């Protein structure tokens, strides 16, 4: 069962990455090419998934949307992972007041939806893809920090770590040589899960118009455009939603599968 999950997750996520990369070199039609003769065309042999209100090819725009999702997801999760891991390791290595402040701040940051952050940033700087990346990435920091801190502390209690401490290794050297490598499986699993959340968040933000801006296609924007044509062309609302769902499902399956594979003791029941 867990092997199946891992395989399904790998296949779906791999396909999505392949589509995003393919969109860099080839799409069936140029994603921004307007062709009013094909306005709201249904799915057919030339335009496989039909066209939007400007006659732009839906499949091509979906492929570009996959690229936006990956770009935002990768950079935002990278930001959250690096920032959160650094803070979590720092808290575990120093303990005391520094740890209290970091954990308290994380609790607080964790409680706030990324959306509020995005609203403030978009109001101050103007909406855009960078806003989405910053809001999602900053929001991911607390969850990484808490997780890393908890796990790092349990490694700090191990004999081999205490032995290196007794041998005179500094706290920072121990953190880098003994603690961080042990956390890799955890970070991979958490990174995958956060990636899934980032894709959902990016879709929501660009749907609201706070994230990726036109003419650049993103799945959230495609849904926002489809919404204005709900009565004329309901089919436009289907493909982007399915793309988001499948991508997130794939990443979640991958995360669960990796967790079971990397740490069989923690098997999901």
């Amino acid at each position: 069962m867990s092997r199946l999950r891992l395989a399904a997750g790998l296949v779906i996520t791999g396909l999505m990455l392949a589509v995003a990369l393919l969109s860099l070199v080839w799409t069936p039609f140029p994603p921004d090419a307007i062709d009013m003769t094909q306005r709201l065309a249904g799915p057919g042999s030339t335009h496989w998934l039909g066209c939007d209100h400007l006659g732009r090819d839906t499949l091509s725009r979906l492929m570009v949307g996959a690229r936006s999702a990956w770009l935002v997801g990768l950079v935002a999760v990278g930001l959250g992972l690096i920032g959160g891991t650094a803070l979590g390791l720092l808290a575990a290595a120093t303990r005391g007041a520094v740890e209290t402040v970091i954990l308290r701040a994380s609790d607080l940051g964790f409680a706030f939806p990324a959306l509020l952050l995005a609203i403030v940033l978009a109001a101050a700087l103007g909406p855009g893809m960078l806003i989405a990346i910053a809001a999602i990435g900053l929001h991911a920091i607390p969850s990484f920090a808490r997780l890393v801190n908890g796990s790092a502390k349990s490694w700090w209690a191990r004999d081999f770590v205490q032995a290196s401490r007794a041998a005179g290794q500094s706290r920072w050297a121990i953190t880098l040589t003994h603690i961080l490598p042990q956390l890799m499986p955890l970070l991979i699993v958490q990174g995958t899960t956060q990636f899934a959340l980032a894709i959902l968040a990016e879709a929501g933000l660009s749907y609201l118009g706070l994230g990726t801006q036109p003419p650049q296609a993103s799945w959230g924007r495609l849904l926002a455009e489809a919404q204005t044509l709900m009565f004329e062309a309901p089919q436009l609302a289907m493909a982007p939603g399915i793309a988001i769902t499948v991508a997130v499902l794939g990443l979640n399956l991958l995360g669960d599968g990796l967790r079971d594979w990397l740490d069989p003791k923690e098997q999901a029941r």
Partner: protein
Amino acid sequence: MAYLTKRLGLLLLTLGAASALIFAALDWLPGNAAQLALGPEATPEAVAERERQLGLDQPAWTRYAAWLQGLAKGDMGESSAYEGAPVADLLMERLAVTLPLSLLAMALTVALALAAGWWAASQHGRWQDQVVMFMTQLGLAVPSFWLGMLLVLLFAVKWQWVAAGGFPGWDEDLGGGLWPGLKALVLPAISLALVQAAILARIARSALLDVAREDFMRTARAKGLSRRAALWRHGLRHAAIPLLTLGGLQFTNLLAGAIVIENVFTLPGLGQLLAKAIANRDLVVVRNGVMLLSALVLLINFAVDVLHGWIDPRLRTRREA
């Protein structure tokens, strides 16, 4: 009592920190409010005049203090886009849509999640369990605003059972009322709840499975209760603490989700107000709107903490020690 005072002090502290962060972010980040309001073609004189009007020639510290003083009196200043309407009135009017929507969605979420989690736990390892788990896996992946769009397509466009959106208001004299108002909130609340319930149901299930291994559950089974009945009567209560923690977090998620979903159903809530305020560069509305939402988030966390201490007195003493 000491616990309550301490928590209250922490609440005030975090409220202060949140207000300072929001003010600073909107004040110091690049982009001059007066210039933004007037557009790039405005003359420097016009910008300076506007700055004086908005009080922007005062130092940031004075303006922050003035804002807090206003907040304490319920005066949030005036909107620059809505013909100088008092922001406090605007926000309250919109909150009267967003808050009931979130509460309705929360009630649906809890009911659905407890039922699904309890049922899955009682059927642990059988196909029914697998079906529930698969549904929750799907629920975790579906964006709630897309689910909302699908519900609109189905119920409003295809079957035409309900209107595609809009809100009649709570006032009976203006063609609204309690019942029509609630009716307009049902579909958006369902779209939010189906997604949020997926998360909570998974937690409920695993919390119940943890409880099921306890001795008192074996006793309950031994005295003749079925697994389902034992989980229902004894299990749920013991699973309450992890569920409450997550429930608090979920309410804030629902609040954020409500802001997005208002755009699907064209509900005149805080989400629409904030989206328009960002487009109009109406920073006064954004600042106070975000502050209001932050205060709600912090209040919910405060309430969850207090409830924790009330349900499980051990948590109170442990924190004080």
